[in-house]
């Protein structure tokens, strides 16, 4: 008898290594360039003029950047808080039971922002909020926070639901058996066990909100730039390495939060 046929493996295809390397190259080379040039001492973004932190200093001292950064953080924090709260309740409502009628419909409804083109949502919100702005006269950050909360819900919902679905329901039965009231069962068993999922959902929602351009651009009132829309505005005029510096900081924050996210959602061995 001949040797057993090897199972199919994509890593054994000819040229696999080359293609893989090329893809990683394409993914990371532009980002690496951006990061490197944020430390460029020259005004040009194409010529290397030695290492310096001048663009970070410039961005740090730029009042418009400061203002936009604070606004971004406020919006992202509020949106993450609201979205995570709503998503937690949605996850509890959709997983703590067997299959029910209309379950798929509810999943689709909750995850709607993932499927509807963002530009459509943006235009819809623009028109909707415009009417409210006219009617109430309120021009504040509330619109941005609400809009961000809405599209962050599915990002918060998915990790929380995953966590709840992996949870042993008999644990709650056991708590009830040990004299815990329904509220105590939730406080002492369900909530602590789903906490990593909630934290992961909140971080993902925060990052998604921090990064949003399209909806923000349409919904914001005058003078309500967030960091991404401020950068977009800058790039329209002149490209300066200052934008590189801001991007690099945003990248660092995102990478940090996403690493935390993966650590939280990782299956424990």
């Amino acid at each position: 008898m001949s040797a057993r046929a090897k199972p199919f493996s994509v890593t054994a295809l000819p040229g696999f290594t080359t293609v893989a390397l090329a893809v990683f190259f394409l993914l990371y080379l532009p980002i690496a360039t951006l990061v490197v040039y944020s430390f460029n001492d020259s005004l040009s973004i194409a010529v290397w003029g030695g290492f310096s932190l001048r663009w970070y200093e410039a961005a740090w001292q730029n009042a418009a950047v400061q203002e936009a950064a604070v606004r971004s953080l406020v919006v992202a924090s509020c949106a993450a808080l609201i979205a995570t709260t709503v998503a937690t309740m949605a996850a509890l409502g959709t997983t703590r039971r067997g299959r029910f009628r209309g379950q798929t419909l509810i999943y689709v409804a909750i995850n709607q922002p993932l499927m509807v083109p963002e530009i459509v949502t943006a235009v819809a919100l623009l028109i909707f909020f415009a009417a409210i702005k006219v009617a109430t006269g309120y021009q504040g950050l509330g619109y941005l926070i609400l809009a961000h909360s809405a599209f962050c819900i599915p990002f918060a919902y998915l990790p929380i639901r995953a966590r709840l679905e992996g949870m042993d329901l008999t644990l709650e039965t056991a708590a009830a058996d040990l004299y815990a009231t329904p509220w105590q069962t939730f406080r002492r068993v369900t909530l602590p066990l789903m906490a990593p999922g909630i934290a992961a959902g909140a971080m993902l929602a925060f990052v998604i909100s921090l990064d949003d351009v399209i909806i923000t651009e349409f919904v914001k009132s005058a003078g309500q730039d967030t960091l991404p829309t401020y950068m977009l505005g800058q790039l329209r005029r002149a490209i300066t390495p200052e934008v590189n510096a801001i991007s690099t900081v945003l990248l660092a924050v995102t990478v940090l939060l996403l690493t935390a996210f993966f650590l939280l959602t990782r299956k424990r061995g």
Partner: protein
Amino acid sequence: MVKVFGSGDHALRALDDVSLTIETGEFFTLLGPSGCGKTTLLRCIAGFETPTAGAILLSGRDFTAEPPNRRPVNTVFQSYALFPHLTVAQNIGFGLEMLGRPRAEVAATVERMLALVKLEAFAGRRPQQLSGGQQQRVALARALAPAPQVLLLDEPLSALDLKLRKEMQGELKRLQHETGITFVFVTHDQEEALTMSDRIGVMSEGRLLQIGAPREIYNHPVNRFVADFIGETNFLRGRVAQDGLYLATGERVGAAPPSGARIGEATLAVRPEQVRLEGPGDPGSLSARVTQTVYFGTDTHCHLHLADGTEIIARLQSPPSGDVGLAPGAEVGVRFAEGALQVLGD
């Protein structure tokens, strides 16, 4: 009590008119094949399931409408269901804490429970860091800590290997003895049921077929199902007459049953260890032919072919040589020990 799952055409009577009284301090075992409703019965007692009809009384008080957290009943779950985010000590103290007992009392009881299940060294560990047997003991300690009136155990030993299982069986008996708590124990292992219980309830398809002490169930099964489920049994087609028991082929095989048995055709049952082998043609014995012998260590099973075609098994103690000296094809005489034949209902 009745429990029906679903409705209409899909309705399933998981518990079909089950009626049962368990004594205080008793070790009561529910025994039956998979899907017969053992877990459902326990869940009704614990309060996780509401009976479709009937009531559950504890020391005379009706608990049928009470939620699980207001019943003085604790459960050892088949999967243990230990809280992974709490330490062993916190797991054991959970029930008392929920009852609002003072901290000092909780701590003292946890200490006592840890000692009882010999896990003092593991108080600070998480359940995931324990072996299966240790987890099982934590589950037991957690359920015992609030000193319930009744402890429900749903196949708590099924995940353990044979040796650990034997050890835990002894441990359970000891704990039950020391605490005096009523145990309702579920298993589908008949040997476990026979060795541990004060009384056994045999279930099948949602019905309680027989309740009795292990000896009673083993020696006087009420019907074919119970006889077959508990231990091995030979079934013979026969007849009950005024003056004795007869096989369908006419041979007299035993004295008349004490009382109550209906005169007429019946199924007779006899345990393999009550089948005696003699020389062929001994007066009063049935003639049979050996078809096969199977060696089991302490005893040897001898498969026999009776004259009317019935196959029966005789369990013989293995001799020191290990060979009972019966080759396939050998002719032997068969006799049943005095009083060993049981007359079964349907």
